[in-house]
């Protein structure tokens, strides 16, 4: 996949965006010296429009739009290969989380359903305190408008006693989530 943004010239802007990303993630993105280790070790790199270090360079040059509209961080599986091997000791996966959050402030969702799934997941947690896989799957399927998706798998799992039908509620976490929403 062609990862560069073609040939159009990029006008270097200030470090403001870099500072935002660093403040949010607490990671020294500017330290990156483009060694490529994160790219060559990333199991998902081939799906990404930009490798982490390319994103970092774009962040340094202040190209917010390209960065936040990239699909890269949506493909991050949080396997931490990059983070634990980065010679500049940058927790790259953490920065990917930050970029996801910043992207969500817009409506971007380059990777279909990722956002939906994560939101549903958290909603389960909000309401039950724990996640019931069955509940989560059912709601996710409804959201996708394919109620019967993975029915066979579900049946198989249930048959083998690996789906719990009635999740035990352990008190919800509505307040915690509410406060999280309020928090600036």
């Amino acid at each position, binding site marked *: 996949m062609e990862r560069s943004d073609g040939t159009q010239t990029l006008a270097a802007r200030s470090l403001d965006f870099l500072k935002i990303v660093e403040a*949010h993630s*607490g990671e020294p993105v500017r330290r990156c010296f483009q060694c490529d280790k994160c790219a060559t070790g990333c*199991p*998902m790199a081939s*799906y990404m429009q930009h490798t982490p270090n390319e994103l970092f360079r774009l962040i340094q040059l202040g190209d917010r739009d390209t960065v936040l509209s990239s699909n890269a961080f949506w*493909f991050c*599986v*949080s*396997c*931490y*290969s990059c*983070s*634990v091997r980065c010679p500049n*000791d940058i*927790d790259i*996966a*953490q920065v990917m*989380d*930050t970029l*996801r*959050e910043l992207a*969500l402030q817009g409506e971007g969702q380059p*990777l*279909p*359903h*990722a*956002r939906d*799934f*994560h*939101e549903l*997941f*958290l909603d*389960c*947690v909000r309401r039950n*305190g*724990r*996640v*019931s*896989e*069955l509940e989560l*799957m059912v709601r*996710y399927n409804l959201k996708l408008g394919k109620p019967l998706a993975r029915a066979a*798998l579900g049946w*198989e*799992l249930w048959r*083998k*006693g*690996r*789906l*719990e039908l009635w999740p*035990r509620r*352990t*008190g919800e*976490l509505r*307040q*915690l*989530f509410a*406060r*999280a929403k309020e*928090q600036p």
Partner: protein
Amino acid sequence: MMRFYPGCTLSSSARPYRRSLDWVRQRLGIEMEELPHWTCCGATSAHALHRDLAYALPARNLAIAQELGDELVVACSACYSRLKITQRALETPQTRERVSRLINGARGVGQPVEIKNILEVLSAQAPRIHKEKNNALEGLKVACYYGCLATRIPRVAGFDDRENPTMMERLVAAAGATALEWPAKTSCCGASFSVINEAIALTMCSQILQMARRCHADLIVTSCPFCQYNLDWAQWQLKQSHTVPVLFITQLVGLALGASEKDMMLNSHLIGTQKIVCRAQII
């Protein structure tokens, strides 16, 4: 004493893990009680969407353990990773402050809790397991699969070597089976994609499974619910002819200590475990 944090999956998709773990625990007399009122760690979803939640959810549980002044034993790699990462993040005052606001300033936020991975607890028993094992597993070639989350935690000294962990190998050896040297033991199985994007998850799994076959593994053992489910599911989904059963390390240890097929819920796997069962009973 040790408090056990099972995590959500152990009561459903990873039930065999819970069962076999409890069996092995009692068999070896390891004292452990479930953490009261524990809640979900937020897993990938939390840190995918909301930094504060990502820390607050584990922090809540850490706070409980801290109140009880106990060390926390975690079986699920994802939970373990989140709890560890949170513990580290809470060292920075700003984070600690933001988080404690969320969990209603529960006392003890940020006070360190001893968080142990189940593998640490089990491998401490390796000598004993070796002493009391039957010969059921002799000659069984086992590929130990750690996945990414258990050993790769940024800036946190792991309980085992990051790039080449060996605790499960030691347990497998103690259980009388043969642990293989294979290169995929810490590759990522793409669990967080198994729902969102099956295709990707399947590709990643099949690479790992293929490597296991190339190394002539009779089975794969893991200590991560997501890895186990993912590798099990992938083979089922892909309808692969040459399958490799994927067991929880506790199931293997259980068998070595004389547990029955039923105790270990060996029939609960998507990919049949008959092979091993037979092996185990023939001998």
